């Protein structure tokens, strides 16, 4: 017998429509930027009044070639598709690390620090042990990442629960702590590669690397599967488990949750620890995966922990949405590199587009009034609540 799931009865359409339109409008505004930055377009603009079509066709050329390169770089070939998936993998995990606390009414800005901890722990297990079979070594490294990230995530949770310290402040501060700590670790004998003076760890044993099933050009690896499984687990946890019920109740109305006998303290700590574990897995993938250097470096995360915030916002804090958002941003980034190489349009455009998407998500009224969507305001209030908690 199929049973109706209470939380899934809310109308899905406007919820889905706003993020999609946000991405499209951001791409359109990005096109304006491309046109304005294009030399041919700007020089044609000088005689716009006499020959307006010159400007328009120059702009069209610039935009269409840039976006064509972007598209083919993201999806145009199996290599391109693989790069999109490789880029998306840590974004999905970092996004989930924001999405879970989000449902508990918490804003986790600490994905970066948690990711660094997870990557360092995975790398440590990876290069310290030798001679283990892959089926033992790789899971052990992932477990280390899960635990290390989880611990780093739990700290702001405990601080919030015990002292009321706002998690936004504490997670940012822990990010600031984790960077230098990693740097310091990397030059100790515990980590540093022999014969090196720069901060880089020893090489991870092959038995702890993410296997990549395809040939040498196709870099997508087992990490993608880990990310997708994590997303399914998060969906199950939030929507189906009693812990998820608590997380949702505390996030939606903490006073009522406590009045019903739930522990807001426990929920806060647990959801932050789970988030840290997810970010930690993301970090592990970046160290052990084909996209990484097979070693821990001081900059291996390249800010993905922060990008997780944008991914979760576009994904509206839902597991499925976060996967979709991770894929979209992964495609934009992978395609952006190709676009820069082929048309000279700087990859920074992608950063701008990403920021515009989040602006439209945070201020959904802009999109809703642009396309006359009946406002339900759900996302706007959720974002505000995350901050006010």
């Amino acid at each position, binding site marked *: *017998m199929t*049973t*109706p*799931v*209470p*939380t899934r*009865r*809310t109308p899905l359409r406007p919820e889905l429509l706003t993020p999609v339109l946000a991405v499209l409008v951001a791409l359109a505004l990005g096109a304006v930027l491309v046109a304005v930055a294009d030399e041919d377009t700007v020089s044609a603009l000088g005689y716009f009044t006499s020959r307006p079509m010159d400007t328009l066709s120059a702009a069209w050329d610039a935009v269409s070639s840039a976006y064509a390169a972007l598209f083919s770089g993201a999806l145009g070939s199996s290599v391109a598709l693989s790069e999109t998936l490789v880029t998306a993998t840590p974004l999905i995990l970092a996004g989930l690390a924001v999405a879970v606390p989000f449902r508990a009414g918490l804003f986790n800005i600490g994905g970066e620090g948690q990711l660094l901890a997870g990557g360092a722990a995975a790398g440590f297990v990876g290069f310290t042990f030798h001679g283990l079979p892959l089926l033992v070594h790789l899971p052990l490294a992932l477990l280390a990442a899960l635990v290390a990230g989880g611990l780093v995530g739990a700290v702001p949770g405990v601080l919030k629960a015990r002292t009321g310290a706002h998690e936004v402040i504490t997670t940012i501060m822990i990010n600031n702590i984790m960077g230098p700590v990693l740097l310091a670790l990397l030059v100790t004998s515990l980590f540093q590669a022999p014969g090196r003076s720069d901060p880089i760890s020893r090489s991870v044993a092959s038995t702890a690397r993410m296997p990549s099933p395809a040939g040498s050009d196709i870099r997508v690896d087992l990490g993608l599967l880990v990310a997708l499984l994590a997303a399914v687990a998060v969906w199950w946890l939030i929507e*189906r*488990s*009693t*812990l998820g*019920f*608590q997380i*949702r*109740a505390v996030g*939606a*109305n903490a*006073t*009522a*949750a*406590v*009045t*019903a*006998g*739930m*522990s807001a303290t426990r929920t806060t700590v647990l959801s932050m620890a789970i988030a840290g574990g997810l970010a930690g897995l993301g970090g592990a993938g970046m160290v052990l995966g084909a996209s990484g250097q097979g070693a821990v470096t001081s900059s291996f995360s390249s800010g993905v922990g922060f990008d997780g915030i944008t991914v979760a916002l576009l994904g509206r804090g839902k597991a499925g949405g976060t996967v979709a958002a991770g894929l979209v941003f992964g495609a934009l980034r992978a395609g952006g590199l190709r676009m820069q190489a082929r048309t000279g349009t700087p990859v920074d455009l992608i950063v701008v587009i990403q920021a515009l998407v989040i602006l439209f998500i945070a201020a959904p009224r802009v999109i809703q009034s642009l396309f006359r969507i*009946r406002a339900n305001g759900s996302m706007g209030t959720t974002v505000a609540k995350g901050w006010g908690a």
Partner: protein
Amino acid sequence: MRLELKGITKRFPGVIANDHVDLVVEPGEVHGLLGENGAGKSTLMNILYGLYHADEGEILIDGEPVSFTGPGDAIAAGIGMVHQHFQLVGNFSVAENVVLGAEPMRGAGRYDRRAAEAAVAELSVRHGLPVDPAAIVEELPVGIQQRVEILKALYRDASLLILDEPTAVLTPQEADDLFVAVKGLQEAGRSIVFISHKLREHRSLADRISVLRRGRIVGTADPRTASDDMLAELMVGRPVDLVVSKGTAAPSEPVLQVTSLTVLDAAGQPRVDDVSLTVHRGEIVGIAGVEGNGQTELVRAITGLQKPTTGTVDMLGRDITSMSRREVLRSGVGHVPEDRTTEGLVGEFSVAENLMLDLWNAEPFAAHGVLRFDAIAAHAQEEALSFDIRTPDVHTRVSTLSGGNQQKVVVAREFSRENDLLVCSQPTRGVDVGSIEYIHARIVAQRDNGAAVLIVSSELDEVLALADRVAVLYRGQLRGPYAMPLAKDVVGQLMAGGDPAELELSPQETR
């Protein structure tokens, strides 16, 4: 001022809040506006005060059509409004609050405190609304704060005053003072629109009563001739039983025993002051009192939401003082919290989820950490039927239900467990008459089934109608309980701090 509303219609997505409302307020008239919560009273008054714009219809003042784009226009036209929730700056003085926005000046932009205080003193004497202009507002009792609100409107020369549920926060005595002041304003030629859902108040104050139901004026009545039953029927749309019918209580063993309970606030001041109380199986004990006299803290301490500073709470001989909230609930205590929207319900959750909110990880709603949606839905269907919860289906978001139906969700949840003790705070606040009738009957049924029931309510009529014994909380101290029947004015005096000895009352533990 003669005010006329013609065909006022206001639509919100999915509802018609006001449906061609016609209303005339004659000069010097107290016009009662009666209706249940959600009947459209507030919407109508917000249109009149310029906060909303009507979709159709017009407002005429002394025969001239007017159009308001904001409260500023309404005030300029001579309309004043005293909101249910006061709009006062707490750390300003009375005079500063009254003149705020129209301050008397001396020289270039210097606030003239003396002129302001003199003006407010004069106004206060002229209208029989005694206040100290120099007093700081947040230090004043609620009744006086309300006077400040009225003076604010009068200072702006309001000739029509809207009073929105003015007695909700007052003691009976303060309400009487308010009524005297309103009569005085009326004699001075001002018109008053008086909004309330309490029939008694309309009968003692209004010259004419208009009854609003589902956005429409369904009748106008003369308070001298209309009976309570007739007004209630107009308001609800069907005959209503205004008297709680219950048999004599048969109290047996003590269930709840509170001993010397004291709760101090952060500043070390007692919110609950050495309270001892016993509630027996098969009786309803009611605690009356003006809000803010320690009711919230007492109930929180009894139900495990707050640890008392000193004292103990025993249930059936077991000390539950240091139990967690969850343990308290699951050891046989049902608790209807005072504010359903902040404490009782998760608005974004469905009716079904809210009906098992406090048993989220217990059989049959969960097994091995996994929610069982079929059990949750089946339970919800059953409770919705048995408690007459009007909802499209049990998966509807609870926040979309009416106040009365939301309260029924809370009551159904708390009453559906096996309870030895039921604690109900404000069980019918903001609930329509029909639902009140229903919830009261359920409370009595719980008593007759052998539960010990504690009712805490600031609605004195409710406490007197339900309780077998009545106690009063005043500044954290408990007076009583006393066996019913008790005269209403006696309880009213206790609520205002009257001395039980002078009222010739002697406490009775059981009867």
